[in-house]
């Protein structure tokens, strides 16, 4: 009985309730001060980024395979969905699932070169894939399906008649993306806490060691790629569903690199970290706006004279700096950093001692976000 009533479970129920209520909150005081349908759209995007970044974290964080070409897999998923919906009139649910499976299969095949390539070489190979894909999509042979350079324009997604009156189109999209995102997050949590997840981590820490422990290295490597690609495919499918437009330029190298930055920033090998990364990914423009309005971006201009005008262009440098800071000072990402802080905070320690002193089991919430996987 009490195992169900842990603080963590209750927190999860509350979170779920919040997620359900979120797209309606903007109509109510005082939430309408900060929320509007546009925020609902942004959080819908957040759900999609979460699915995509979860896949990248499974590959890069858990299995230690660096990929700079995740955007290519997302694009494949998006194109599969778009072509299925546009050319064959497949309903969106099946189109997205098929895109996930198809992209997963491609990921499995892509795992083959990864068996021979490690570290920077793998990164270069995946980067090459990212660079090649737009050209492939523009090939004349498949133009009939992909629409070449003009891309594919889908009809705007509408809420089905069943939910009319309860939801606007925007709210419908929110639920259509948030539901799979939550399912995929739970799935990722379960995978990483299973035999498979432990095999991935063994693989990351030492391939030889993993082999010694009886992990089938080639199989698990390809499985990691495949799972990651499955997430990318689903994410891409949801993306094109909400966006109703896909072109070869939609996912570029920059975006792929930004994804990797966000995963590292949030915390490799952490689901909570991925949620954080997806949040930053979604609101990164707002963050730059915010730091600009606070005058933070003007700082370089004050240091380097004559650079005032172009301080906005320092976004790329900002990401790089964040990445270096993360690597040096918070190797486990933001979530790991918070964890450490919490562990060190005096009141936390006191609380733990108090609970231990009373002979009770340690407060589960204290461990809730700590890194179970390690």
């Amino acid at each position, binding site marked *: 009985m009490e195992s169900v*009533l842990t603080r963590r479970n*209750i927190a999860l129920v509350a979170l779920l309730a919040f997620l359900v209520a979120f797209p309606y909150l903007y109509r*109510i005081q005082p939430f309408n001060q900060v929320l509007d349908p546009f925020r609902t759209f942004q959080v819908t995007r957040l759900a999609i980024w979460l699915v995509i970044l979860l896949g990248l974290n499974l590959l890069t964080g858990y299995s230690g395979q660096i990929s700079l070409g995740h955007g290519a897999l997302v694009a494949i998923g998006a194109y599969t969905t778009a072509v299925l919906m546009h050319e064959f009139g497949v309903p969106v649910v099946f189109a997205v699932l098929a895109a996930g499976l198809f992209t997963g299969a491609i990921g499995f095949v892509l795992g083959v070169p990864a068996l021979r390539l490690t570290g920077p070489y793998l990164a270069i190979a995946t980067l090459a894939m990212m660079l090649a894909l737009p050209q492939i999509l523009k090939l004349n042979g498949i133009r009939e399906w992909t629409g070449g350079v*003009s891309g594919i324009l889908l009809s*705007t997604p509408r809420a089905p008649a069943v939910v009319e009156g309860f939801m*606007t189109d925007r709210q419908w999209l929110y639920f259509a993306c948030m539901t799979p995102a939550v399912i995929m997050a739970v799935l990722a949590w379960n995978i990483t806490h299973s035999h498979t997840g432990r095999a991935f981590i063994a693989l990351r820490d030492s391939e030889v060691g993993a082999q010694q422990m009886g992990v089938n290295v080639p199989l698990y490597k390809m499985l990691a790629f495949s799972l990651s690609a499955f997430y990318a495919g689903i994410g891409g499918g949801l993306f094109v569903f909400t966006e109703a437009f896909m072109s070869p330029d939609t996912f570029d190298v920059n975006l792929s690199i930004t994804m990797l930055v966000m995963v590292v920033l949030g915390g490799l090998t952490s689901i909570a970290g991925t949620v954080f990364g997806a949040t930053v990914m979604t609101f990164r423009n707002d963050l730059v706006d915010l730091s600009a309005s606070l005058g933070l971006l003007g700082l370089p201009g004050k240091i380097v004279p004559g650079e005032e005008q172009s301080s906005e262009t320092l976004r790329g440098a900002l990401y790089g700096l964040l990445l270096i800071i993360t690597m040096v000072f918070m190797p486990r990402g933001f979530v790991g950093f918070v964890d450490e802080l919490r562990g060190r905070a005096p009141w936390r320690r006191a609380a733990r001692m108090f609970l231990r002193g*009373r002979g009770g*089991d340690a407060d589960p919430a204290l461990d809730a976000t700590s890194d179970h996987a390690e």
Partner: protein
Amino acid sequence: MDISRRAGGNFLIRALALALFAAGLLGAVSCTSEEDGGDGGASPGVSDTEIVLGTHFPLSQHLAAAYSPIATAGMKGYFDYINAQGGVHGRKIRLIVEDDHYTPSDTAEVVRKLVEQDKVFAVIGGLGTATHSAAANFLVERGVPDMFVLSGAAKFTDPVVKTRFGGNPDYITEGKILGQYIAKEHPDAKVALILQNDDFGADGERGIREGIEGSGVEIVAREAYESLETDLTSHVQRARNEGADLLVAYTLPPQGANVAKVAREVLNWDVPIVVTGVDATDIFISLAGAENAEGVISVVFGKQAYQTDDPGIQKHAEIMKTYGGGAEPSNLTILGQAMGELMVEALQKAGRDLTRDKLIEATESIRGFRCTICLVPVNFSDSDHRPFEVEVYVKVEGGKWVEFGEPVGFESTPE
């Protein structure tokens, strides 16, 4: 044990209360029939004193320098100038420029923000083909006027969409005009096309082919390059090997300049070069070097910043100095002001009692409007949403684009 259980109980009650609260909200708000999207009043973005407009541009990263002055100096500066004169029908124009990094997914996002959060009256001068494609349908659906799209892709104006108007000349029309020049001046030319591998290049090619139809001009080579390539040496070389004796470039200025430079400097090849109007900019000449650019042919619809004895350009320089943040007058600021002048003209015609429908109607009624810095008049009608269908040939002479000949083109708006 005791403690955690008691705490758990409290939490459960709170969570239940929260869930109930949420359910209550759901029930309460689902009954309201209010439509979201901010189309509440007849004219969002219009108050007694203000008209709010929005646009999307790359303000950071690599393309910012190449495009952002159109919006941040040209359009904004001109609107501020108009505001200083008392605005349009007593209303000041406020332009919100959002940074989309020239990335389609970001454009989709910032345009939604403009419509739903900033509640703009209209979008003006949205830049880029792929980028604007990601937002165009959304704008149509919300009935937001999509004024003067800064993309030459023909798909934005053909077929005509009621709420959308083109900005710069479309590449098919422009290609036709250039093709006609080639057919007339080089009737036996063997042409090599150097094209950016996207809509821009494809539309240009279509226009050129239509322009040379029926003449002795032959296309002997077609070289497509990816927009990330900046060194086109191998493409120019292949064009020469194919026996071309005239180059046509549908490229952005850096690549176009590279073509001229490679042909003249590297290959020492004195071949006539015809480039898209996109390249007819000062930056093209400075990148290629005045020597290499000499004799390059293109088309323009606006005046050039160096024509400082022209009253329109003089005024433009003044406006940029006072209201455009001191921006140096260039093709970019001129293009921005041209879009601004068109918008102000449309708003003037729409009247004080401003609605989106009236703006569309007023824009369609614009005939023979010549902005102060344009070389050719603008005509719209309900079947023609293309502003510039007539252009003027220019040739690089002594490091400057110099007009020659009569304006050429196709006007689809009947008199």
